[in-house]
């Protein structure tokens, strides 16, 4: 009797499968998802608020989903831009997963949404491993965080299609070494674009929106070296993991219990808040 069985299954196959399905579903309706990764306090929300406001003024239908362990503060800030915003509370979970995101989008995201910004949980470790079905992944770091951040969190920066430096107005005070930062990014992700931004002064605000719109128009985002090889077992033939996608698992994300915010939040719409009982 053979007591050992080769499985050769990618551990994240289930998430990757869900992410692929979500990406295809979004593409079919003309929506591009942008996944924003950074550490807590890096200024993701301030920059995103500015970008959403710009999108609204230009008449681009945008929506934002922001994930935090607790509080709806970020959604309230983002909603000031006038964009449709949903807060997801992960109740301690350190990252979003594709299936979770798909559940939160169902019944909430208007059909005409062109860009969906997903502000991941503030964490540079865990969210890096989870494809959310995005077409543009952005890693952000503020000038106060140190030039070696890309080396300390190589998967977050190594898998990004775009790197944004925030709080550039504080660069001198923080003695931010831009050259060193760029070298460190290039080491983990050769060829990726690095843009210095400041939500306070408005420097390069709009670049994120432009890059996202370019992807929407069919531009091919930068392909990180690290993203190419997911290791054997990742590229199984279609159908091999399909059964898993249908399978119930222990996470039990209770989606759909709060489906609100239909249509665009034209005015000061209160953001939807959903607790993810993971």
């Amino acid at each position, binding site marked *: 009797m053979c007591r050992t069985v080769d499985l050769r299954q990618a551990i994240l196959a289930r998430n990757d499968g869900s992410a692929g399905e979500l990406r295809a579903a979004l593409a079919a309706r003309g929506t591009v998802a942008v996944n924003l990764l950074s550490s807590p306090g890096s200024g993701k929300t301030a920059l995103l608020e500015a970008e959403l406001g710009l999108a609204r003024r230009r008449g681009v239908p945008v929506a934002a989903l922001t994930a935090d362990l607790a509080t709806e503060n970020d959604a309230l800030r983002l909603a000031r831009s006038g964009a449709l915003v949903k807060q997801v509370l992960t109740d301690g979970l350190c990252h979003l997963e594709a299936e979770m995101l798909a559940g939160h989008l169902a019944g909430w995201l208007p059909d005409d949404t062109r860009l969906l910004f997903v502000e991941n949980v503030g964490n540079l*470790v865990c969210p890096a*491993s989870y494809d959310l079905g995005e077409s543009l992944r952005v890693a952000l770091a503020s000038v106060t965080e140190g030039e070696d951040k890309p080396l300390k969190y190589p998967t977050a920066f190594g898998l990004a299609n775009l790197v944004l430096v925030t709080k550039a107005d504080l660069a001198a005070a923080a003695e931010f070494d831009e050259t060193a930062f760029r070298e460190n990014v290039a080491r983990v992700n*050769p060829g990726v674009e690095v843009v210095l931004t400041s939500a306070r002064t408005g420097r390069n605000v709009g670049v994120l929106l432009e890059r996202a719109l370019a992807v929407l128009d069919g531009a091919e985002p930068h392909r990180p070296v690290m993203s190419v090889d997911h290791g054997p077992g990742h590229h199984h033939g279609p159908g091999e993991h399909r059964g898993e996608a249908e399978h119930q698992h222990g996470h039990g994300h209770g989606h759909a219990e709060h489906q609100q915010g239909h249509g665009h939040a034209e005015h000061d719409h209160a953001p939807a808040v959903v607790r993810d009982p993971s």
Partner: protein
Amino acid sequence: MHEMSIAAAVVEQVDRAAREHGAQGVARVRLRVGELAGVVPQALDFCFELACAGTLLEGAALQAESVAARARCTPCAVEWAVGMPPDLGCPSCAGGSVELLSGRELQILDVEWAERPGVQADQKG
């Protein structure tokens, strides 16, 4: 710490395979974990034990084989160990044709069944 989610995914997949094979229990699960997979083996070990509790995998041993990250620049015909923190720039050119050969693996390699739950393999002392 996403190792708990990773451990739960391993348990889910192995549990399903065990049922498909009619196995009563699991003695050992072998994983391949790349240097750039973003997973801490010690944390995974800890979470695996918790995730196994009350399942067919209870008592199963976890063995993680680490895989070194290697990259290649095809035009230069150069191959190198990426290291940690990784260096993915070609050492001999500034070109952008670098390919990652290994290092992102996060895979269940194989599983050894046990006669019943809670019996570990290789408990010879």
